[in-house]
């Protein structure tokens, strides 16, 4: 039994509300308690760094300071929030000048970098563990072929260690294997989906997301699995971005856990590309 401070970030309260539901279902099954970070604010995503780097640090520093006060490690399921929070936390820990500057800006809050920032794969891989996952599976997913898709910023953390290999991560593969799915080997697990260009340059997002979808299909996958809400959204939006071919369902990692543990997906109706086909393949063990 562990307790983590939960930092949902904007997506998990709106566009990916069903991600939150599936995380909560999965975590409570394994006895992980989540306490939502009190009065959390946006991390600034990729916008703040471009406008003013100091603002990016201050926005993230504010959340880290509130979390530090509670004392539990911070769990950030969104890849961008995770990246921003992790980088800021490390800098606060090591760079005294920057730390003082951030603390001066977020006064009366204060941050020293004493807690750790964790993503969903880390929590499930390190705190639950592969063995416990294997033991608890109630449904047979062996007829489901999945393409693990990490997305770009989860492990690409510059100038510091990441939790997995920056170019060829395998920790989610291990979890999906433990859940009983069949994994496809493909070279697109880290390719960019077009990120935040969905609105400002739709053609780019379409082109990149389309390649990922095509590739997953060509290697025979039944579904793409990702931990990132932006990746999930961009791929799920493909029918609206102009793709006319058949699409594969895009599941969150925690939704595959739901399938293996409970045989169903809580937020099924929120998917734009239907997931029924995959759910039907689930058999009782």
């Amino acid at each position, binding site marked *: 039994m562990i307790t983590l401070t939960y930092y949902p970030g*904007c997506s998990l*309260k*709106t*566009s*990916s*509300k*069903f991600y939150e539901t599936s995380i909560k279902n999965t975590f409570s099954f394994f006895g992980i308690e989540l306490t939502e970070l009190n*009065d*959390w*604010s*946006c991390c*600034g*995503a*990729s*916008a*703040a*760094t*471009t*406008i*003013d*780097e*100091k*603002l990016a640090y*201050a*926005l993230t520093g*504010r959340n880290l300071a509130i979390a530090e006060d509670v004392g539990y490690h911070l769990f950030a399921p969104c890849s961008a929030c995770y990246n921003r929070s992790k980088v800021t936390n490390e800098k606060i820990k090591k760079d005294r000048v920057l730390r003082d500057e951030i603390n*001066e*800006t*977020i006064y009366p*809050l204060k941050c020293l970098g004493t807690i750790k920032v964790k993503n969903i794969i880390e929590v499930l891989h390190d705190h639950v563990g592969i063995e416990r996952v294997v033991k608890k599976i109630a449904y047979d997913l062996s007829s489901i072929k999945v393409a693990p898709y990490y997305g*770009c*910023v989860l492990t*690409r*953390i*510059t*100038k510091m260690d990441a939790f997995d290999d*920056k*170019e060829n991560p395998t920790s989610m593969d291990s979890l999906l294997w433990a859940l009983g799915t069949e994994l496809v080997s493909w070279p697109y697990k*880290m*390719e*960019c989906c*077009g*990120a*935040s*260009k969905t*609105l*400002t*340059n*739709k053609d*780019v997002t379409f082109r*990149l997301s389309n390649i990922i979808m095509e590739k997953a299909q060509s290697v025979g996958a039944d579904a793409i699995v990702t931990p990132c809400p932006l990746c999930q*959204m961009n791929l799920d*939006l493909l029918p*609206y*971005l102009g793709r006319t071919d058949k699409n594969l369902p895009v599941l969150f990692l925690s939704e595959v856990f739901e399938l293996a543990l409970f045989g169903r997906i809580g937020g099924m*109706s*929120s*998917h*734009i590309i239907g997931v029924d086909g995959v759910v039907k393949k689930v058999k009782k063990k």
Partner: protein
Amino acid sequence: MDDLTFLNQIEEISGEKISTCYQCYKCTAGCPVATEMDIYPHRIIRHIVLGDREKVLKSKTIWTCLMCITCSVRCPNDIDIAHVFDTLRKVAVMEHMEAETDTWRFDKLFLDSVAKHGRLHEIETILKYKLEKKDLFSDTKMGIGMFLKGRMGVFPHNIKDRKQLRKIFKKIDSK
């Protein structure tokens, strides 16, 4: 051409040792949007060293970048190229040389929303962006689709301590 202060300026703001680049092309080789760029990433770096201020700041490339950080983690000399591009965008705006205005416009509206509510209010930000672009209807179908799936809310997400947040924005602004 030959603006030698340019390299110093960008190295200082970004904190990156741009001059250590030995043109291995690894950044360009891995860039998912290199084909959409007018100047390849490795050449942008070289142009900075040579002091081609206008060429770099007026390039489309710095706005095409998706910030996927592939170039940065692959750079053998540990130059965070994505971060250099971030810096270049900022300087391009400061010096009124931006080749593309949509990304910056959206980023600003995004942060306006955060300053006002504490969190992003999607629909308000998107509508404001569309109004500024005078293009309200191009993504209507997508918007309705998202709404029907419960993936886009109507109401803002106000945090309690908005006063402190406004102070943070003000302090940064006045620096």
